[in-house]
Each structure stands twice: as structure tokens, then as C-alpha cells.
């Protein structure tokens, strides 16, 4: 596309009929109040905390629904709360804006958020400090809503860092276990690396366009050099790789599974980790002006989705499988964004939120039943004992596998199509589009395979563990059923009935996509899913000896996968340890020896000089007389000679 047309379309997409004065802040405020109340009241009465928090989340969801239905087509609501700060040429408003993209995000966040709150009541029922848990969980909702409601980059950034904080607090929720606390810290720090990139992007945008308001920025974009767009886009993407766990910053997400499972479902699958994708969608007008950056996004995303899927193949911890699967699926979302199909990225974000939240909650239900056992080798046969959990887990597995008519099929199919046609809008992608699509298809097969594997190991066969599993309480089963229902029909609804593409076309570029295909065609297009699911069913129900043999066949490869490509070890060896040693050396060597040494050395020299000179201070008048005489002679000679 021509530069000017791209700019024009960016300006068009940010031109809204805005309605002022809507009290959007209340959406975010409700969970904040809930967070406070859950702690204060929950401290007295532990059981009330969960219900308070859930109520706050549900009320917030109600508010979102209200604005969602009131939102006119192509319009947006705006709520300027106050001028946050201003100095010199920098002025930032605390501004909320509710457009179609925000509406979708808000619905996901508060909708799924409410379900997970409800689920947590049962899951955390026996925890001593559950009031703290619900306080954090509501605080997370508050931050996440700031993130998606923010009308400029800085309010978004407030939410961005806020969700990072809540993630830190919730991963390390059981902080008596130091490795859990360390996982939380790791998440925060790795995210901060991304945030540094994000901050630089904000500085660059402020400097070059003089605004960080999304709408104003969209109007002013254009006229700068491609290099600048590329630089800003890449800085933003660095931020996105941190939050959304992409290579090279994905290492925190698998560790984040240390947190309670509802946290993994809400924060580390459905909402927070998709913030990076949201950021790219929000800033799409900048990315389309930086074709090179989009290729980088695609490449990183593809690599991430492939690597994570490979690692997921051999994990035995049920949550680790889901964690790597999340990394991989986030890669899929970025693939769509990189291909220029931002609405598809959002589509996959939504469907993924449905089925991945369901899968995580299902795994939580299993873990809850097996008394905190997470190793799938200690499970098996749970399908008979906990039918609701098993059924919902299977539905979601088929959804993530991309089998029509389950939800994942529609978004995934769009992603692969978008990759194939990405050359049309980005000439740099012309040569690679097909190649990207092929690898993505392979990843889709792998996804179907490892997810089915996990379902087989957990629910089929006979029970291998030693505890007495039981079906979970109703508060936990109900959210599972709702989510499984959404994972079942959500994709179809958004594709055909509600038309997400049509809904988002006023805020995101939606390229004309082909006429809707028939049911048979979509079944045909689901072949990667069928292949993966079939293969896994075969290997893990009938030919159960084969996986072990395969595993032993190429030991180095399987070990490489099992040990997660040694990312953590390499980072530790190449960056963390050397940097710490460097710091230590800096302190002992530079600070104490050289800098302080020279300070104290100077003092010592002065001291010594004093000692030497002190010898002359005898207190004897004749000595002083002698000095005076000598000095007089010296001065006379000095003046005579010169």
C-alpha cells in the first residue's frame, strides 16, 4: 500500500464520533473498591472476601455490558477524569475511551474475570489468607481495565505496570516458598525489560508527534521517516514481548505457574498476557507504516509459537503444558498482527481466552481434586470421577486444536489465511507469506497433539495416583461449563452471527475476506487439528509404548525439549551471573578500591604532609627565628636573580 493511503486509513480509523461525559471510570473503579473491601471485610470474615470480589467483578461486567449496548456504530465514549500532570511540553490527561476494540477487551476481561472470581471461591476455600488473594485479584481487574480503557499511552502504561505488579503479587502468593516468590520477582523484572522498551517508544512518540493520545496520534501520524516508525514499532514490540511472553522474554511465563491456578487462568492465559497483542492492535496505524517491524513481529511470533509448542510436547506437569501452549498461542496472535490482520489477532485473543481459561480452570479442578498433584503421570482415568471437568476440558482441547465448529478453528483459520495473503499489504512479506503459513500449520498440528496428549494422560486410562480424587464443587463447575460452552460456539458466533470483523471495522483495518465457507469445507480445513488429535489419541490410548520409544529414540533432542532449550540456563550463564559478578566487582574493585581509595589516599597524603610539617612546629622561638631568617634570605635571592 502507498504510504499516503496507509496514513489516510489510519486517520479514518481513528476518526470517531466521540461522546463525552460517560462515567467510564466506574468500570475500573468497582474492582478497586472491591479490592479494598475484600481485604478489610475479608480480614474479619474470610468467606466474605470471595463473594465481595466476585460481586465487584460482576457489577463491572454489568457496566461494560451497558456501555457495550449503548455504543453507537463507529462511535466511542470518552471520559476525561482529570488532567493528570503537565509540565512544559508534556501534558497527560487521565483519559478513558471506550471504542469497539476496548469494548471487546472489556467484555473478555470482566466476563471471564467474573467467572474466574466465582471459581476461585471454591478453589481457595481452604486458604488462610484468601482475603489477600481476592484483594489482589480485584486489583488486577482494576489494572487490566485501566490498560484497556486508557485513552492514551500513559494511562495504558499505568495499567500495564499495574497488571505486572498484581501478577508479581499473585505468582508469589504463597510467598513462604521462596522459589514461588522468586518466580514472581522474575516475572516482574523480565516485564520491566519490556517496559523499558515501551517507555522509549513513548518518549519517541512524544518527541516526534507531540501527543500520546491514541486518536490524536492517529491523526498526526504520517510525514516521518520509515526508520522512525520502525524504531518506535520495535520499541513497542519489545514491550509486547515482555508482557505477552514472546522470545526472548517468554521465560517468566512458565515459572509464573507457581501462582494459584485461577491466577494462571485469568492473568497468565486469558487477559494480562494478551496485553501485548492489544497494544499492537491499538497502535496498528504505526505498525502498518513500518513493514520491516511487522516482519520482525511475524518472525519472532513464529519462532516463539514453534519453540513453545515443541517444549509443550514433552512436559509432564499439566500446568506447564498449558503455560507453553499459551506462549505458543500468543505467538499465533502476534502472527496475525504481524501479517496486518489485527482484527484476527483480537479474534484469536477472544477465542483463546475462552478455551485457555477453561483449560486452566479444568487443570485447577484436577489439581484441586488430586490434592495439589500436577504431574500427569500421577493422574489418569479422572474422566469417570470428574465428568464435568473432563467434558469441558475435552471441548476446550478440540477448540484449541482448531477443529470446526469449535471456537479455535475460526480464528486459527483466519491467521493462516492472513499469513498467506500478507504479501498484498506488505511487500516485504511477499516471499515469506506461504512459508510462514506452512510453519504455522505445523504448529497447529503440534498444538492439537500435545493438548490431546495432556487430556489423554489426565482423563483416560486408569488412575495412577495415590489420593482420592473427587469432582469439584458447583462454584467451580459452573464457570467451567460456561467457558466450555463459549469455547464450543464462541468462534462460530463471532464469525457468523455477531461478526467480529464487522464490529471492529471502524477501529481496525479489516480486509475483505472471502465469502463464508460451508460446514464441510471448514471440516476439511480442520485437517491439522484432526491430524494432531488423531495421532495423540492413537499414541496415548492404543500404542502407549510408542511415545516412550520415540522419546528414547533421539535422546539429545528429547532432552533438549524436556529441558526447554536451556533458555533459563543460558540467560543465567550469559547475563544474570556475569552482571551480578560485574556489580560485585564494581563495588569491591571500582567503588571501594579505586574511587574511595583515591579519596582516602588524598586524605592520607594530606595527613602525612601534616605529620611531616608538624616536625617544624617545635614551639621554640629560636627555630621560628631561624625559619624567618632563611625565608628572608630566600626571598631576597629570588628577587635579585629574577
Amino acid at each position: 500500500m502507498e504510504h499516503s493511503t496507509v496514513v489516510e486509513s489510519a486517520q479514518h480509523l481513528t476518526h470517531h464520533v466521540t461522546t463525552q461525559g460517560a462515567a467510564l471510570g466506574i468500570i475500573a473503579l468497582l474492582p478497586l473498591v472491591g479490592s479494598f473491601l475484600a481485604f478489610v471485610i475479608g480480614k474479619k470474615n474470610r468467606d466474605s472476601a470471595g463473594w465481595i470480589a466476585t460481586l465487584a467483578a460482576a457489577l463491572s461486567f454489568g457496566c461494560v455490558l451497558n456501555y457495550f449496548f449503548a455504543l453507537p456504530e463507529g462511535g466511542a465514549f470518552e471520559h476525561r477524569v482529570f488532567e493528570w500532570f503537565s509540565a512544559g511540553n508534556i501534558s497527560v490527561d487521565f483519559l478513558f475511551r471506550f471504542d469497539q476494540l476496548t469494548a471487546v477487551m472489556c467484555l473478555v476481561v470482566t466476563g471471564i474475570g467474573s467467572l474466574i472470581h466465582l471459581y476461585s471461591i471454591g478453589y481457595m476455600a481452604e486458604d488462610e489468607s484468601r482475603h489477600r488473594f481476592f484483594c489482589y485479584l480485584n486489583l488486577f481487574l482494576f489494572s487490566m481495565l485501566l490498560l484497556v480503557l486508557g485513552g492514551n499511552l500513559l494511562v495504558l502504561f499505568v495499567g500495564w505496570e499495574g497488571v505486572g505488579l498484581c501478577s508479581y503479587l499473585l505468582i508469589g502468593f504463597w510467598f513462604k516458598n521462596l522459589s514461588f516468590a522468586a518466580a514472581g520477582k522474575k516475572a516482574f523484572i523480565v516485564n520491566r525489560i519490556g517496559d523499558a522498551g515501551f517507555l522509549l517508544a513513548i518518549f519517541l512518540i512524544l518527541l516526534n508527534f507531540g501527543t500520546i493520545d491514541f486518536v490524536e496520534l492517529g491523526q498526526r501520524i504520517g510525514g516521518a521517516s520509515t526508520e522512525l516508525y520502525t524504531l518506535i514499532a520495535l520499541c513497542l514490540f519489545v514491550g509486547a514481548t515482555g508482557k505477552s511472553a514472546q522470545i526472548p522474554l517468554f521465560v517468566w511465563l512458565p515459572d509464573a505457574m507457581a501462582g494459584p491456578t485461577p491466577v494462571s487462568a485469568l492473568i497468565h492465559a486469558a487477559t494480562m498476557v494478551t496485553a501485548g497483542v492489544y497494544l499492537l492492535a491499538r497502535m496498528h496505524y504505526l505498525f502498518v507504516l513500518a513493514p520491516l517491524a511487522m516482519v520482525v513481529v511475524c518472525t519472532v511470533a513464529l519462532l516463539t509459537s514453534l519453540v513453545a509448542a515443541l517444549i509443550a510436547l514433552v512436559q509432564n506437569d499439566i500446568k506447564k503444558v498449558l503455560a507453553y501452549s499459551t506462549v505458543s498461542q500468543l505467538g499465533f496472535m502476534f502472527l496475525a498482527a504481524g501479517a496486518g490482520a489485527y482484527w484476527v489477532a483480537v479474534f484469536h485473543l477472544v477465542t483463546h481466552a475462552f478455551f485457555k481459561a477453561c483449560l486452566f480452570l479444568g487443570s485447577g479442578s484436577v489439581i484441586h481434586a488430586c490434592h495439589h498433584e500436577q504431574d500427569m503421570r500421577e493422574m489418569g482415568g479422572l474422566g469417570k470421577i470428574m465428568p464435568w471437568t473432563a467434558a469441558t476440558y475435552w471441548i476446550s482441547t478440540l477448540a484449541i486444536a482448531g477443529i470446526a465448529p469449535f471456537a479455535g478453528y475460526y480464528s486459527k483459520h483466519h491467521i493462516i489465511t492472513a499469513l498467506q495473503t500478507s504479501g498484498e499489504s506488505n511487500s516485504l512479506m511477499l516471499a515469506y507469506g506461504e512459508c510462514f503459513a506452512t510453519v504455522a500449520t505445523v504448529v497447529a498440528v503440534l498444538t492439537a497433539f500435545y493438548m490431546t496428549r495432556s487430556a489423554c494422560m489426565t482423563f483416560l486410562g486408569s488412575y495412577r495416583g495415590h489420593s482420592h480424587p473427587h469432582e469439584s464443587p458447583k462454584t467451580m463447575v459452573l464457570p467451567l461449563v460456561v467457558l466450555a460452552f463459549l469455547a464450543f460456539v464462541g468462534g462460530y458466533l463471532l464469525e457468523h452471527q455477531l461478526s467480529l470483523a464487522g464490529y471492529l471495522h471502524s477501529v481496525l483495518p479489516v480486509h475483505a475476506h472471502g465469502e463464508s465457507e460451508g460446514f464441510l469445507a471448514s471440516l476439511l480445513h480442520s485437517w491439522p487439528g484432526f491430524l494432531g488429535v488423531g495421532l495423540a489419541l492413537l499414541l496415548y490410548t492404543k500404542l502407549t509404548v510408542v511415545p516412550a520409544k520415540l522419546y528414547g529414540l533421539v535422546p539429545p533432542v528429547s532432552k533438549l525439549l524436556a529441558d526447554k532449550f536451556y533458555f533459563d540456563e543460558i540467560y543465567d550463564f550469559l547475563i544474570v551471573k556475569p552482571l551480578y559478578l560485574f556489580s560485585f566487582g564494581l563495588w569491591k574493585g571500582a567503588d571501594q578500591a579505586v574511587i574511595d581509595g583515591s579519596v582516602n589516599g588524598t586524605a592520607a597524603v594530606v595527613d602525612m604532609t601534616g605529620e611531616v610539617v608538624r616536625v617544624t612546629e617545635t614551639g621554640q622561638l629560636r627555630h621560628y627565628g631561624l625559619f624567618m631568617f632563611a625565608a628572608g634570605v630566600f626571598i631576597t635571592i629570588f628577587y635579585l636573580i629574577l
Partner: protein
Amino acid sequence: MEGLPLLSTIIFLPLLGAVMLYLLPVCKPASDSDGEVSRYTALIFSLMTFVLSVILLVAFVPEQTDMQFRESASWIPSFGIHYQLGVDGISILLVLLTTFLMPIIILASRSVKDGVRAYLFHMLALETAMLGTLLATDVFLFYIFWELMLAPMYFIIGIWGGKRRIYATLKFVLYTVFGSLLMLVAIFYSVNAYAALHGEYTFDLAKLQEGLVLSRNVQIWLFAAFALAFGIKVPLFPFHTWLPDAHVEAPTGGSVVLAGVLLKMGLYGFIRFAYPLFPLGAQVFGPYLALLAVIGIVYGALVAWAQSDIKKLVAYSSVSHLGYCVLGFVAFNVASTTGSLYQMLNHGISTGALFLLVGVLYDRKHTRLIADYGGLAAKVPVFAFLFLVFTLSSIALPLTNGFIGEFLILSGSFQTFPILTAVAVIGVILGAIYMLGLYMKTMYGELDESKNGDLTDVNSRELLVFTPLFALVFVMGIMPGPFLRVMTPTVESYVQNVQAKMVTVAQEELDYDFNPAEFSPDTVLSKRRGEASPLAQVRFEGGLQ
């Protein structure tokens, strides 16, 4: 309030309180063995000072960009030295920070057991000196107060400090004095240069600022002398090594006042004196100062990470944070300079609070080593919560005060020094590494019952100490507007004025060589058109004695 010299009252009220501690019979050790009465007396005086400074803030007109509440009285007329005070948008919030922190420090002085009265005396005397330094508009008066700050601090560290207190306090005083003396020379030189041009001696900052015409070369030298004095005080890398020693050895209150107010004096000196007096020197040195600031940011953060002593860690974090302040100021645009001033307040609050928190631990367990703690969150949840909040403020999480300052500084500096600022952003990452590392090692994990099983949570008096700081963290993070509005008009006109001087003087190409003889007293005398020089009078009088 009409007719009351408000600024003088604010400055000397603490000193009055200090004297009262020794005059009031109830404060005598005989009748006040545990120092309670002395504490309340000191608290009342510091609170009254705070109330007065709040009145000052209310009466202050932000839109007026020059000095307000001026007071002037001739002091040493023959040299044009005046007792002259004034406050503007740059100094007023620092005054408030000082008067705000002092009651908190006095409240937290319970851990001082011996010589409470003397301790409080020094604290109040220190407050007077600090306020005088901030409010003086006469260079000589400024210098007097500047040096006066040293004496109480010398005793506070030297008497109530830790094991190596003598070493630390001597290092602190000698290092600072060394820098100040060079500044004194530079001050005299400037005054002489002014006299050479205008035929009269003056130490009036406004007059010097207006009438001083110096060549670029001279400005470079004079700026260097000022920069050394102020750079040591900030402390700017590589002049920072006195700071960790002083902090570690100082009693809690000493650390709080050191980090909270004293460190800001260095940068305040740059802002008030070095830049307006020697704009060309500033122009030359600016990028180098920025470089040192950025090195300080990264270096301080890295070295903080390597520390095993909590107080030392916080001390090095101060080096890093003050680096941000310096970077913001020398980037010299309205946003970054405002951010720098704002960050000075933030640092006073959050680092002050962190030192107070360390003090709480130290009072109970008499150790500051990170390794001696661990798992405290389960035992002392309120303490852990406060620690978390101030940690987050220190690492500039949005909606805490630290974020506003850091964002204004970095986004402002980015407009002047993009590459350096990009490097400085690394400090944002490192800050999280060392602070969260500290938090994890002390608060999380399994509690060692034998070591810390008897630890008690913050008591109500300590809670009273932390509450105002806690509130400010969020007030200043969410509603920074009222604070910023007090300073932005002054900062705007300030930056404009100094920048205009950088440009116009540069255009005049006053580039002749540095020649000290040019401004020697003899030259000055010859230019006084026959009038008797005060300097000559002094010589004459001195000769008679």
C-alpha cells in the same frame, strides 16, 4: 501575619526550639530522664515550623515567578552583604519537604536513648541551617548556612552513629568542606568581577545574576568550582563514596535527613547559583554532568544490587536516584527540570521512609544485614505492606509519586540527550532488580523462628510516622497537579532566562583568555573612580589593630 517576617520566623523557629530545650527547666535531664518532655518540645517546635510553612504555601502566588516574601537587612554594608531572604516556586516545596520531614524524624527519635536533648538540639539546629540555605538570596548568607549545615550533622553522625561513626563523619565533613572552599573562592572572584564592572560590592544573587559579565573561560572555571562543591553534595558519581559510609553509620534520623534534604542541597545549589550565575560554564559542562548522572544511575543501581547491608543498598540507590534528578535538571527543559524538582521531593519521601523502615528493623534486631532476615512478611504483615509500598514508590510504579518524577525527567531529558536517556532507562530495570531482590530476601521465604520469631510489627507510634509518608506516595502519584502548578511557572521563566543568557552571551563571543590579574583587587580599586574601597578600609583598619 502582616508585618511578621515569615521566612525568618520559619528559619529561626527551630533554632529557638533548640535553645528552649536547654532553657526550659522541664527539659533538664533531672526532671526528664527518658527525654520524653524534650521530644515533645522539639516536636511542637518542628510542627509549628511546618504549620508556618504551610501558611507560606497557601499565601504563595505561583504565577509570580520572582522571589516572594522578600526580606532584606543590611548586614556587612561595606561588602554589600545583606541578610536577604526570598522564596520562589523552586525552593518552596523543598522548604515544605524539610519542615514536613523534621517532625517525622523527631517522632522516630525514640530509638535514641542517650543524650536525647543534645540529639534533638542538633536536629533542630540543622533544620534552621537547611531552611536558611534554601531561602537565602544573598550568596554570602547562603554560604554561611551551607557550612552551618555541616556542624549539626557532624555531631549527629559522630555521636549517635554506629561503630565506624568517627571515620564516616570526618569523611563526610572534610569531603564537603573541601568542595565548599573552592566554591567560596569562586564566590569571591565573582563578587570582585562584579565590583570591577559596576563599582560596588554585592553578594545579592539577583544583582550578580543581572550584572555579572564574565568570559566563557572564566565561567568555565567558576562553574567548575561550584560544580565540585555541589557535585560532592549531590553526590554525583564519582564523588559519592562518602554517602554510603555516612548513611550506614548515621542514626536513623540522620539518614532520613541526609537522604531527605541534605542531598538535595547539592542540586539546589546547581539550580539556584551555578546555572544562573555561569550559564556559559553550565552550557559547556551540561553534557558532562549528564554523562556523570547517567553513569551514576546505572552504576549506583548495579552497586546497590551487590550490597549485603540494607542501609548501604538504600544509600547506593540514592546515588542512582539523584542521578535521575541531575539528568533531569541538566537536560534543561521545563518538563525535565520540573521532573527533577518533583523527584527530589519523591526521593525525600520514599527513601526517607525506607531508611525509617530499616530503622524499625534495626531497633528490634540490631542488625542491618539482609542475610539476618527472611520470611518477615508472615510475622510482620503491616511492616511488609509498608515496605512494599515504599519499594514500589522507589522503583517508580505508576500511580505512586516516583513515576511522575521519573517520567517527566526521562521524557524531558530524551528531548535533549536521547542516547544518554536511553541508557538511563536501564536504571528502571536495575531498580526493580535490586529493590525486589531486597524485598524478596527479607520479606519472603520461610521465617527463621530462632532468629526473628520474636519480631513485633510496627507499633502505633511508628504507624503515625509512616502514615503521612504513605499518604503522600499516592497523593503525589495520582494528583500531582497541585504540586506541579506551584513550581511550573517559576521553572518556565527560570529555564527561559538562563537559556536566553546561554544564547545571547554566546553570541557576543566574549572569548578572551582567563586572566586572574584582570579582576585583582587593585584593578577593582582603580576602577572605583577615586572612591575609597571598602577593601582598602578593611586593610587600613586591620593595620591599626
